[in-house]
């Protein structure tokens, strides 16, 4: 036995452990989480990170509000651009941009373009499979466990986020539905009656 361990220490690992192996060894994940939904969460995470350039993706197995375990793991992350602008906020942003444009025109600047680029916001993501069936009850269970804005990984950023967007008044979640052919579609689900964007 001693010889065996000594030999292992001398040898460099031929290959790094497979993701599955490291996942199984990850003791932070609760054993109650079904591996199927966990794999799904990783699939969505991968998709967001590498196909949609999201950053700061985090897996949440427990509710930040109640600390009770979620029915399934959720993700949170930061999109490269703002994912959702409430129509009222959009009007406000347009007015602001118009004011700035007029100001710069007075100063002689030739900037004629209305530029609206709101800061991206962290979003909740609910990974699902297209073949699943949902009910209103299960959906509201998810919503009851989340806050308005997902908690950030770094607590330092938390304070910066202290001035949350005043327009973000209802909970929202990005519903990610993965099909068996690994296509993933994303839909924003708002908690309550929220008027639509005028795209």
């Amino acid at each position: 036995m001693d010889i065996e361990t000594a030999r292992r220490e001398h040898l460099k690992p031929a290959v790094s452990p497979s993701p599955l192996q490291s996942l199984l060894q990850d003791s932070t994940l609760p054993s109650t989480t079904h591996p199927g939904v966990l794999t799904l969460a990783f699939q969505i995470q991968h998709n967001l990170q590498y196909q949609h350039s999201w950053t700061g993706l985090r897996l949440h197995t427990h509710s930040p509000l109640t600390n009770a375990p979620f029915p399934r793991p959720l993700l949170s992350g930061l999109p490269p651009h703002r994912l959702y602008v409430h129509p009222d906020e959009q009007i406000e942003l347009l007015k602001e941009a118009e004011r700035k444009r007029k100001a710069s025109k007075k100063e002689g600047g030739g900037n004629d373009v209305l530029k609206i680029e709101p800061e991206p916001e962290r979003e909740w993501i609910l990974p699902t499979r297209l073949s699943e069936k949902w009910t209103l009850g299960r959906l509201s269970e998810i919503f009851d466990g989340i806050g308005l804005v997902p908690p950030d990984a770094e607590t330092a950023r938390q304070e910066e986020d202290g001035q949350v967007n005043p327009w973000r008044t209802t909970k929202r979640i990005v519903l990610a539905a993965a099909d068996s052919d690994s296509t993933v579609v994303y839909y924003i689900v708002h908690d309550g009656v929220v008027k639509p964007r005028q795209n």
Partner: protein
Amino acid sequence: MAQTLVTEPFPISRIANRYLIFDVNIISHIRREHNICGVLIGTIPNLSQQNVFLGIPMQLMPEETRLLVEHGHAYIVEDADAHKTGFMEMSREDRLAFLRQMDKQGVEMALDAKRRAADKQEKVLKEKGLERKIQEKNLRRTDITPNPATGETSVGPSDEKSLSDSMPPSPTVGSARGQKVAPYFITPTTSHPPLPTPPLSPAAELPKVPHTYPLFRHLQSKGYFSTPGLRFGCHYTAYPGDPLRFHSHFLATGLDWDEEFELLDIVGGGRLGTGVKKAYLIGGEDPEAKASGKEDGSDPVRAFSIEWAGL
């Protein structure tokens, strides 16, 4: 437009399981005050294929009827029964009064038609430059009118005479010009009058509504107008104000709390909604919240709005 006062509760006629309103004042009243549009279904009887612009009666969804009745704005009248009892038990005085009324209308219409014909004649003569003829005619007319003693120039007395019985009026009513005018026979097209507004019957049961009613009630309580949603493959299309002024905001589908739905429906609804600048809305009543919310009066309905994320 002059605002006509509608007294609440007003009757809603139930005919063959349809809820209908026949009074245009009530129709505009519920649209203005209670955010209920209904659907106009009346066509012209002899041109029933003309269905672009429909008129009264207005058909209400059972949900709309239920809401109005629950809030005490309206009550249901079984129209077939109301007609049967109303006409069978009508008193002789009422019947005669109504017939007299009809005769009076007939005479008025006949006189009106005659007057219009005369006006037309006058106009044509004027166009042809034959004003002299008109003057002659007018002279003749003024010769006759100051002669009330003949009894033929006034309409009133002979009219009343003819109506002293329930017989149809005799065609001997004189016109203002001393000529005989046959009164028109009017076919009554409404039943209120002659029937009085039916009385409120508190025993009538509430209209049966589909399981999507809680969502409908929820949207109404938030001030939305809801119209039937078949055109968009949902239960209701919800408008933030009068549908004539606003685009609709939501394609609403009502569900039971534990009713399973396919995610593909969410994807389809969300995509369709975003394509027409709307959001797809699903919602239903939480039975637990309903039980606990009875005391504090909170709305047990939970709704979710779905939009395409654009990823």
